[in-house]
């Protein structure tokens, strides 16, 4: 830096300006955007968890649907693919319904459903990651996490969100298939500099117009030794339809030794 300063006195102002911009950029972002996104991808992948959540879905007219669920998650051994079991507690007409989602990062996910009124387990095959996650404004892709390698990332700037300095990272799909499968032509994420948790995100639809805004609130360090964080409140709003979702995690336990047997269709039927 001192060397650069020396050069300024010799060279023209124009060059000096460029050097300052260049060197500060180098200094500022010692970490690459890919590294940031990789760290962000795993920051909320807790070993396992049990939680009780309330989902509040609100349409444009302000009408609400409230759902309460009990859920468990567990990472499949040696991967960052989750198994998710969700049991519906409310509303009463779907009470006892269970969904089991087995993520497959290389393939379509498996979704199994238990219908208490028919006492049957049924498999649901859904087209892709852009579909809504149980009727919320989050897609399956948003919940599972978008694979870092499938996107090109650039750091736009640094910005303060609620008092936390964040990298603002723009991610664009590496090809059209990714855009089609996720439904996004661009994502902009606000990743906290020190912890790599996302605090905010904006998604753009395939045509390039703003599609969804998301917020991740009340972040909690749940596994300090592994730097795992968990948001206690998720918010998403579809700016095109005016539909919005708030997911509140009312109770959360992490790393409690959830058994693999929870994530079987037999277990779904047994309850």
């Amino acid at each position: 830096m001192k060397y650069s300063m020396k050069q300024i006195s010799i060279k023209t102002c124009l060059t000096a300006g460029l050097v300052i911009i260049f060197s500060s950029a180098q200094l500022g972002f010692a970490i690459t955007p890919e590294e940031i996104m990789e760290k962000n991808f795993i920051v909320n992948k807790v070993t396992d968890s049990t939680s009780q959540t309330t989902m509040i879905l609100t349409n444009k007219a302000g009408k609400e649907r409230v759902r309460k669920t009990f859920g468990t998650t567990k990472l499949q051994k040696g991967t960052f693919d989750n198994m998710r079991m969700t049991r519906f507690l409310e509303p009463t007409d779907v009470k006892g319904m269970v969904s089991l989602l087995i993520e497959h990062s290389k393939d379509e996910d498996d979704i199994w459903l238990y219908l208490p009124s028919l006492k049957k387990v049924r498999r649901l095959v859904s087209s892709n990651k852009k579909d809504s996650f149980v009727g919320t404004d989050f897609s399956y892709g948003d919940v599972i996490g978008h694979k870092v390698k499938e996107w090109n990332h650039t750091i736009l700037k640094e910005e303060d969100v609620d008092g936390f300095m964040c990298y603002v990272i723009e991610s664009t799909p590496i090809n059209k298939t990714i855009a089609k499968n996720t439904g996004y032509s661009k994502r902009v994420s606000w990743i906290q500099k020190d912890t790599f948790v996302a605090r905010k995100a904006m998604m753009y639809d395939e045509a390039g117009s703003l599609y969804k805004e998301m917020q991740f609130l009340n972040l909690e360090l749940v596994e300090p030794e592994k730097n795992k964080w968990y948001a206690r409140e998720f918010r998403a709003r579809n700016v095109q339809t005016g539909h919005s979702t708030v997911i509140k995690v009312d109770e959360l336990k992490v790393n409690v030794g959830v058994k693999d047997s929870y994530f079987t269709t037999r277990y779904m039927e047994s309850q």
Partner: protein
Amino acid sequence: MRKYIEFIVRFRWAVVVAILGLTYFFMKTGSNLTVIIDPNTIVPKSHPFVATTLKVEEVFGSRYVAAIGITPKEGDVFQPEVLAKVQRITQKLRETPRIVKTNLLSVAASRAKDIKGTEAGMEVRQMMADVPTTPEEMAILKDALLRNSTYMNTVVSEDFKTLMILAEVHDATAEDKKEGRVGFTYVSNKINEAVDAERDDSVTIEVTGYPPFIALFEKFAGLTPFLLLIAIVIIGIIHFEAFRTLQGLILPLVTPIIAVIWAKGFMGLADVPLDIFNMSTPILVLAVGAGHAVQLLKRYYEEYNKAQPNGAQYTETKFFNVSGIIGKFLPLMIGVPVVWGIYKGFQTGELGAAVVAAKDVGLITMIPVWLFLIWATIRLIMYVVAPAKIVADKGGIDANKQAVIDSIVKIGPVMLTAGIVASCGFFSLVVFEIVSIRVFGVFSGIGILSILAVEMTFIPALRAILPPPSQRETNMEKEERFWDRITGFYANTMLGQNRNKIFWITAVLIVISVFGISKLKIESSLKHYFSPELQVLKDDRALNQRMAGTNNIYLMIEGEEQDAIKDPEVLKAMDDLATFVQTQPHVGKVMSMAEFIKRMNQSMNADDPAYYRIPDNRNTIAEYLLIYSMSGEPGDFDPYVDYDYRLANMVIFTHSDNTSDMLELWKNIQGFVAERFPPNVKVNVGGSVAQSAALVEVIVKDKILNIVQIAAVVFLIASLVFRTPIAGLLVVTPLLLSVMTNMGLMGLLGINLNIPTALVSALAIGIGADYAIYMLFRLREEFSMGGNVDEIFRKVLRTAGKACLFVASAVAGGYAVQAFSRGYYPHTWTALLIGTAMIVSVTAALTVMPALVLKFKPKFIFGGDKK
């Protein structure tokens, strides 16, 4: 009255300047006047059909559906290029403002899902996420379409030859208005943009539905000012032919034009917006204004001739010679460019093209007029500065002023009476619910009051300023012409032995009219307003025939509480209703939530057809809905069910947009609903066809009511003025005759009573009373001076009667031009109906009414008032 008018004549210059200043002021405030094309302002909001339509739009986003059909010229739709076109159009429409994204439906729309049963469960995928390219992929798509019968005849025709895209358009929001995205021309153009890019030799693309039709309507309604202009010019020309003087050409037009400016200015001040259906209201003001102006002018000439039978003597007569020569050719000079403009206008359907064409030709033909006007201005200044140079004859000037004063003293009270009668009638319309009718009443009322104000101030002042008629003009005016032959014929019939013939003819006319009225249908079909030769109509017929129908009716199912729609009983009733509706005439298809539930039930049971039914357990239905939400998007069911599952929307596709067909269907549905639905579930009907039905019902009912109301007010005031109800009856007679024959004619010709035709009858009564009032006053005036009865009748017909004839012919002629309008029938109807209304009301006022007077010899005319 005499004092007042003497005052006006004395301060003529001040009056003219003041009125012109006032007119300028109103022109300013009138320019703030907003013209709205929002159909909501004309709908009767409390009508159940309209309330449902608005609710359906609010909750489900559906209102105006545009349909686009894509048909390959060879083979079926399973060709990559064809499907890619549909995908691109769908994508473009998704990004188009005012199109409801979530309701967009086509094989490529994200909400078009293939629900498929498997051994283990259910598969829900977008029908066509990618355009299939291989024969295998094509086969998969075809299977998916066959499996999900919802899409049969809605997104694809049964023979797989046509694909359809359905786009729903919502009303302009506040933001749309800010961005100028208003009107249906805007949406229609956007749709055409998306579609035109895909047109080529391989496919036929058809565009139809309400948005392009309303856009067409907007286009033709936009021609109204142009037609008004033509009417003004033609009225002027006919008056010129009648009076043979420049004053006769110009003055009767100055009054209504100023009055229209004032009325618009008042409305701008009061912040009352003008709706598109009131664009033609100036016609009424024009006709009424011309009527009064002609009566005054006619009387003025009469009085002037009395005082100065040989006209004013001019030392320098060149001025008037030039005006005479120019005057001779003036109709030609104006007529040629106008005819040319009309021709171009109807050829292109563009107002701009017509104006440009008329202007181009007019620039040449009007050269002499411009030169004359420049010359005349110089002369006029000279006349003011040094009148002696032009007019030597002081007697002429005095006679002129005297004639102005006398004519107003005699005609003024009559005009005020007639004007106040008419404006009271119109103002009384403010009690109506529909904004459009209220605006019509206020606008016409203010217009007529403005006419009175102008005729009582500006016109006499101006006439006092203008040079008095020369000998040539007075002679011209006195000449016996075919107008006199008509009034002469009337007088002969009335006074001769055949007087009773008049009553017989009237009676026959009434019988024929009553017969016609019995055949009159209250019915409206927006699509039948237009010539079947127009492209949109051709497109509509083609697509309407191949698919389930290009018109939509919505049935809104309303439960009492949340989740009512999840009740198996309600869903089963809905399903049965859909089956029932599909057996009704004109109906092509019904889409409803019940069909999706049935389809899901089937697929959850390995696609077994036995399970294509509503499950019996309410929770199963709730579970299915939750499952669907895990595979679709939150908005997928938005067009069919509301967020609380309290309201559901059934979409009926029908081949007919006729309101009477819709009403018939609705009657049958109500019968079915009463039997089949639980009592706590209500079913209502909405949609654009239902809204038209409501509009027709209410406007037509309101219009008939308002005819009765105006007639009653006219009767009342006329009775008060003449202090006898007999006078009221006499005044109302021609008015009722013209309304009756109008409606009878419509019935006989098969013209339906709908919004444009109902407006015409309002116009007919607006003017009908005036002729009778002028005639009665004149009769009374002449009788009060005494004389031979025959002579009196002849004289009244020759004077006041002839003036009525001038106006009626002029207005009828002005509107006859519209008969040449191609493509838009309301113009033709207006031409025909205004023409007959004018002829019937003037003929009745000149024959039937005086014949009645002659027969019954009422005291208020024959006996009274010989003070």
